[in-house]
């Protein structure tokens, strides 16, 4: 397992929508080792406040050694991160965690909601890389509105993928939830759903997939201190009882293994 702690240069900051930011780092070691669904832990400031690193899914890597994250400003850490200037150095730790297990591309359905779209682009690009363009995965992306969703579509479209969109306000694509769209596809058994997004969305997808006997992998978020299995802070309750750890057993899990009522 190749993991790195590196000071890397922030190459570019792009504000894609209100409070939605994409950062591009020059991080060749981490980018080369990364798999879809894995994440990095970023040290926000060199000082001790905020103390802990923040976890972000790897949004995209490129053969030129760049690595992107896509995030929403929700608190102090993400606010500071959005303010870092291009050219500055940040410490990245990664790639961390277990990513998605890639199956047959044309039996794959990717469902991303909100910032859960971040890991989906990396996943989609790997699906497209390993296959003929004819065998493309299905992609469903949801967000609150057109402003939030539209800037995120280009990446998928560049891969030649068609995106089924859903927005809460109907300003783009289906007016409603990604689960409605997913339901409408009536996927055949043998399909796998790959999903990341808000907890209620993933719970609904899990429910649907259970009913339809479709396998489903989800990437979950928890609070994390270390990101590498040392602190045991990132407990995820299991259906069978006890806990798994999001950072080392996940963040991607078989959705059926998790306890969704919590």
């Amino acid at each position: 397992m190749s993991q790195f702690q590196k000071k890397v240069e922030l190459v570019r900051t792009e504000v894609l929508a209100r409070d939605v930011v994409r950062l591009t780092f020059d991080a060749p070691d981490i980018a080369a080792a990364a798999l879809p669904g894995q994440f990095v832990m970023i040290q926000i400031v060199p000082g001790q406040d905020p103390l802990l690193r923040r976890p972000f899914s790897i949004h995209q890597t490129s053969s030129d050694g760049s690595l992107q994250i896509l995030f929403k400003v929700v608190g102090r850490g993400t606010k500071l991160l959005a303010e870092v200037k291009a050219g500055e150095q940040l410490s990245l730790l990664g790639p961390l965690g277990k990513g998605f297990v890639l199956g047959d591309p044309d039996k794959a359905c990717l469902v991303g909601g909100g910032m859960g779209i971040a890991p989906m682009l990396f996943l989609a690009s790997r699906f497209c890389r390993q296959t003929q363009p004819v065998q493309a995965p299905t992609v469903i992306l949801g967000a609150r509105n057109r402003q939030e969703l539209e800037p995120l579509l280009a990446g998928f479209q560049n891969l030649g993928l068609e995106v089924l969109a859903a927005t809460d306000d109907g300003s783009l694509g289906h007016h409603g939830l990604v689960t409605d769209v997913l339901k409408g596809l009536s996927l055949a058994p043998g399909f796998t759903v790959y999903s990341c997004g808000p907890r209620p969305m993933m719970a609904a997808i899990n429910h649907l997939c259970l009913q339809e006997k479709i396998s489903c992998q989800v990437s979950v978020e928890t609070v994390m201190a270390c990101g590498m299995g040392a602190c045991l802070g990132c407990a995820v309750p299991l259906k069978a009882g006890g806990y798994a750890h999001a950072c080392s057993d996940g963040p991607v899990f078989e959705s059926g293994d998790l306890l969704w009522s919590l």
Partner: protein
Amino acid sequence: MEPVIVKKDEVDLRVAIGTLELKNPVMTASGTFGYGREFESFVDLPRLGAVVVKGISLTPRSGNPPPRIVETACGMLNAIGLENVGVDRFISEKMPYLSALGVPVVVNILGESVEEYSRIAERLADVAGVAAIEVNISCPNVKKGGVAFGADPKMAAAVTAAVKQSCQVPVIVKLSPNVTDVTLMARAVQSAGADGVSLINTLIGMAIDLRSRRPSLANVIGGLSGPAIKPVALRMVYQVAQAVTIPIIGIGGITSAEDAMEFMLAGASAVQVGTANFVNPRASEDVVDGIANYVREQNLDSVRDLIGALLLG
């Protein structure tokens, strides 16, 4: 400690905790370094003085429900709930890797009764690679109605004596800072035969999420660690150093070699790096490097010259 000829460009970083001789004073703090292996990509483990593993109980524990951690100003709260694989799986699954590396392993143990502590120590007594046992007395004593062993000198002494009887390796007792007079606790465990004391464990704290009006931790309260607690830790190490003759291991908010050496000046023979491992997984090895540089630059005969060398007046 036997005199060893130290090469000119090498520095003498050796310290001893009772019969436990360490190549340098830097350990990792229990619960912040997993079972060691988690850090293999970042730390050359055999370079550490010792690895202290996550607290081990007699039977596996699954720990508290999430959220288990929350960040605070220059620190963090944790309420992991002592999740661990239990002593048997620890011995069969975790020790082989560590003992093969040859890094001294200090096993942090926790029980809910004196007997439980003894039994864990007995199982560990002859396991290859176990260099010492660190007794975590900060957990509540279930038999006595939930008062922590760590706040009652008599109970702490009883646990210490029982563990001493159960094994031959050095026994370090880890003290809680949540007491009126930490020196009472240190004296009690010294009298009961402890080979050393380590301090501090976490301060009890709490955080609240105003938005939800709920405690940030499912367990409501948790243990505060990180740079925020360093002044309290340094004070307690200093006080204990005046009160006991057994070696002290300093813990609390150490993120750099400078921090570590401050604890040594205050009287610690060794230190443990805790929360800092989460921010900088190479922190423990960085502290080894930094201490070595300092000892070299200051032309000290050995790192032991720093122990208790605080100037007063």
